[in-house]
């Protein structure tokens, strides 16, 4: 069944998407749906040498259908090209304990699930574009490090690593950022996927250091909608699952102030990052993944 606009996986809300299948399948569907959308858009620009044919899949660019093969076999084949690698990208995924949290576990996937899906989808897009992609997962230390490579196998490895990533520990992205800064010899793209419940100044310093080394940096701030609003109960003790810090507060009395504090914190991230040339996007886990992919695409466009 052809994908219609309303059924494109990249536009589905994450709760619905989460019911469709595993990470690899979902990422592929999301990317293909996303690329199908791009098909109608003016954004083009891949250049590659022909390598092989493969079966057509929904979302494939119709320009690359081999009509001769269609005439001979009555089946659609798409021409595969030997892609030129023009970008070295590295995904930095926060797998701290806070990322495993969901404000509505019955309805909304955890932030980590959302971030994994975004990472897988971005990886697929990057690899299909002929870029190399690396992956680092971290909490207060680096858990997984996968060097940037291209090709379908790399993507399968990335998906495998993402599937295996278990949440835990506290969020300290600066170690991962500095590790990448020392390891990436060529300038590339660094994508940080985190809920940014971190030490602000240290993280900013590490991100600016990356930028200073000439890397393009994209920060995708994953937020659960339940973090924007206090829970509806009034008389509770809140504790941080990472630090076990506790705060007694009457939520009903401070709800408005809390909302303002979250907005101010997000604005502050934006004000701190954008002037340094660091792209910053907020990803609400109840919003479609296409927003994340679009953010990447805009960045990629500027990179040329």
């Amino acid at each position: 069944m052809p994908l219609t606009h309303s059924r494109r996986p990249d536009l589905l809300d994450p709760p619905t998407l989460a019911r469709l299948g595993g990470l690899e399948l979902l990422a592929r569907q999301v990317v293909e749906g996303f690329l199908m959308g791009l098909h109608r858009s003016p954004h083009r620009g891949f250049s590659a040498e022909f390598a092989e044919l493969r079966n057509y899949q929904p979302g494939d660019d119709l320009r690359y259908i081999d009509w001769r093969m269609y005439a001979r076999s009555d089946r659609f084949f798409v021409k595969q090209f030997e892609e030129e690698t023009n970008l070295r990208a590295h995904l930095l995924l926060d797998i701290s304990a806070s990322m495993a949290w969901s404000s509505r576990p019955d309805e909304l996937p955890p932030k980590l699930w959302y971030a994994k899906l975004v990472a897988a989808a971005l990886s697929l897009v990057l690899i299909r574009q002929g870029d190399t992609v690396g992956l680092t997962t971290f909490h207060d230390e680096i858990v997984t490090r996968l060097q940037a490579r291209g090709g379908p196998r790399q993507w399968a490895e990335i998906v495998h690593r993402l599937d295996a990533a278990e949440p835990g520990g506290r969020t300290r992205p600066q170690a991962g950022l500095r590790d990448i800064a020392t390891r990436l010899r060529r300038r590339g793209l660094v994508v940080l996927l985190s809920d940014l419940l971190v030490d602000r100044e240290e993280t900013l310093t590490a991100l600016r250091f990356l930028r200073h080394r000439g890397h393009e940096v994209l920060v995708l701030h994953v937020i659960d909608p339940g973090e924007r609003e206090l829970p509806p109960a009034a008389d509770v003790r809140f504790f941080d699952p990472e630090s076990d810090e506790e705060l007694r507060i009457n939520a009903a009395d401070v709800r408005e102030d809390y909302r303002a504090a979250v907005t101010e914190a997000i604005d502050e991230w934006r004000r701190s990052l954008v002037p340094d040339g660091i792209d910053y996007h907020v990803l609400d886990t109840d919003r479609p993944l296409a927003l994340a992919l679009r953010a990447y695409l805009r960045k990629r466009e500027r990179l040329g």
Partner: protein
Amino acid sequence: MGILAPAGLLLGLAIAVPVLLHLLHRPQRDRVAFPALQYLFRMERDHARQIRMRQSLLLALRLALLLLLTLAAARTVLRGTGAAHPPTAVVVILDNSMSAGRVVGDGRVLDTLKARARETLELAGPGDRFWIVRGGNAWETVTPLAARAALTRVAETEVVDTRADLTAAVARAEEILARSGAARGEIHLLSDLQASALPPRARPAAGTPGLADAATRDTPAPVVVWTGSRAGEPNGFVRDVVLGGGLPPRAGRRTEVAVIIGGEGEERGVRLLVAGRLEGAVRSQPGASVVLPAGPFTEGPLEAEVEIDPDALRADDRFLIRTDVVPPPSVVRLGAIGDFLAAALDLLEEGGRIRPGTPTGADVVVAADGVVPSALAPGQHLVVVPPADPARRPALSRQLAALGAAIEIPATRAGGSRVAADETGSGLEGTTVHRVGGVVLRGPGRAWVTLEDGTVWAASAPATSGGEIVVLGSPLDLEHSEIPIAAGMVPLVEWISARGGGTAPGRMHAGDTLRVSSRATAIESPSGTRHPVDGTLEFRATREAGIWSVLAGDTLLERVALNTPPRESLLQPIDPSLLPVRLGAPVIEAATANRWRARIFTARRGRELWRPLLFLAFVALLVESWVAASGSATPPSDRATADDIRARHP
């Protein structure tokens, strides 16, 4: 402010119960995982002061809301002047005793008290009834009055020279209220509250009819007490004047006048005036006594006056003396009167205070050892010293009865005792009497000396001769008593002798009952007002200090000096905290005119405040909601329970 439905105040407690239960049984707050805690910390850091202020405001608003609802449920009323009250029976005790004549500023204490009484009456409702009990006029009967008549009674009230017993006045007021049948009663006590006027209240014996005890009534009438005139000040006064050592002055002989100045304050001038002429003067400190020589005087009535320099309370700055200057009485001795009595009589004879007389012509017959004349000359007095042998006493009693004196000398002999009260003025109190038969009055007469065991040792009774028969309870020898060697022996013998030679001036005070002879038709006050004598032969309305005249038509029968009561001169205000105990009734104090107006008519109902209170509660509720909403964007209906949160965020 007042409360019409005190039970409504329980609402406040009722509201507190669930709050307390909630606090007592509140489980540990639910612990909920929330990774974005740093945003909360940030919010706390940025808005801590604002949050605290809002929370304080919310607490205040919620408490105010509960308070307003409680006050509304309790039907709070605003007391104010002019507000109506249910019909009330009011006894106004207006203290016009001597101390109320003290000058304070431009007026007297009584003027202030009358002003408060007028305020009471001006707030009267149409159904109110008033009794005006004047504290200094204990003899007055009181009747219920309408407010207008009560105003007139208050206006015509003047200071009298008597002393007030406010405790008795309150008891009397309670009795009036109890008998009035009024559903609601109040007592308004207007006084300068001198401690001497407020003795502890005596409880009536069980089953005593009459006076109602406030403590035993279900709802004792409140006593609203004016405490705004309590300020005391030093007051000097003439406490006592003793003429001739307590003995009547004798014609042609000089005497001495001892003046005791009471109270406190500065040195005062003391003057003795006889018939308006200055007889002597001296200066003295209050608390001291001075002696002024006087005389000699001619035979006849003597009226003298001692005065000191005036102070704020002037009525007690003078003391009046009324006595008779008489020749020494003639005394005859019958029987074996004993060495001590004989020596005393000899001494008085040598001093010219008595004269020897004959059995038929003597003023006084002193009879001892059971020897008694069979008859007495007209006006002749008899003094009887009983025989030592108890067996002879019944015969003596029969002889006395034959002379008209209903006095019995018992044959039994009692044990020893001490003199408890000596009204002869001889100072025998404390003197031991070893063996005593005692004296029993069987008819009209008077006990003069009483022992601690209640035995009467000396008594007198009228005789048919027109004189008086004085009987002692034991012989005057050392076997029976220590009186013969006591300092009071000679004064006692002179007092005995003086039966026939005039009497020492008595001590009577304004307010005492004046007993008059059956011939009296009128009594004239010192200011010249004549009062007819009624059939009781008693006159109680002795309101003025001065010389009172007892008249039979236009004939002067007797003149009596009444002085101000010394206790009334002790200007020591009582501690208001003692009032409930002294008065035996619930007390409401008022020290200013405004408080007086606000506190009288305790059942007065002002405007009820439940409407404005509910309105204010509604406003408080709106403000509370607005303030609470400013910190919470989630409507209450969207709020989940803590259990919901825990389920969602395990």
